[in-house]
């Protein structure tokens, strides 16, 4: 049996202890929890900056809640409109018209709405914690969190835009079937 050598063991232990734990982007990984954030905020010496960081934290939370609530309301309305289009399409079908193109578009729209709803709910559950390292980097930390929130909100918004566009395609298909002219259909 090999003799126990403490030197390699000590070296390995020292290596583990000395390895720096790199701060991951808290806003993405959620590694920094709210308690840690609170502790870091209370350690900020500049009272003005401390108040501003706290305010930004609250505002980001409120903005995420506000925007996701708006997007969910939009999705509810978009879904309701799709249901009415479907009702109209079924009436048209009873009249003997072929609505196969409408039905295909309806299914695509339903999938797009479901995907958008999932995206909005995921976004609503996200938390954005400002990754405070040092006091001189507060601006950069807040900016990083804000940028991440903005990017995420824009991505979620785009999912809702895609859902709306898919419903508009259903409407276009129905308009073709019934021979009605659809106006003002462009969306940025």
């Amino acid at each position, binding site marked *: 049996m090999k003799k126990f050598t403490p030197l390699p063991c000590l070296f390995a232990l020292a290596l583990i202890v000395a390895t720096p734990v790199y701060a991951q982007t808290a806003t993405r990984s959620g590694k920094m929890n709210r308690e840690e954030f609170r502790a870091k905020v209370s350690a900020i010496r500049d009272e*003005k*900056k401390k108040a*501003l*960081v706290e*305010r*930004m934290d609250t*505002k*980001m939370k409120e*903005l995420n809640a*506000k*925007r996701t609530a*708006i997007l969910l309301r*939009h999705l509810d*309305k*978009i879904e309701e*409109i799709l249901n*009415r*289009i479907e*009702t*109209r399409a079924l*009436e048209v079908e009873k009249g003997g018209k072929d609505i196969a193109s409408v039905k295909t578009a309806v299914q695509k729209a339903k999938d797009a709405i479901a995907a958008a709803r999932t995206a909005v709910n995921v976004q609503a559950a996200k938390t954005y914690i400002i990754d405070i390292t040092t006091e001189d980097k*507060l*601006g950069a930390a*807040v*900016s990083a969190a*804000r940028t991440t*929130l*903005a990017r995420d*909100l*824009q991505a979620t*918004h*785009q999912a*809702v835009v895609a859902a*709306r566009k898919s*419903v*508009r395609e259903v*409407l276009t298909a*129905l*308009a073709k079937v*019934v021979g*009605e002219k*659809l*106006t*003002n*259909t462009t*969306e940025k």
Partner: protein
Amino acid sequence: MKTKSAIFLAVSALFLAACNYTGPAATTTTPPTAATPTTTISVTPTTASTNVNDLNAELNATVDDGGQADLNQLQKDASGL
């Protein structure tokens, strides 16, 4: 005699006045609830039109800028750091 009559009349007048007194003048303010007009909440029913252009207009009503104004304001608020 004249003095006695005068006193009697004065006392009588005071007595009659006291009998007619009904306390301080009543306020004429009507209770606020009575004066407040009934608030009518008019609810516009959701249109149930299935006209393609009406539906399209409703779809357009769900368009927004993605909260750009709020995000810009957030950026301004953070400028003090």
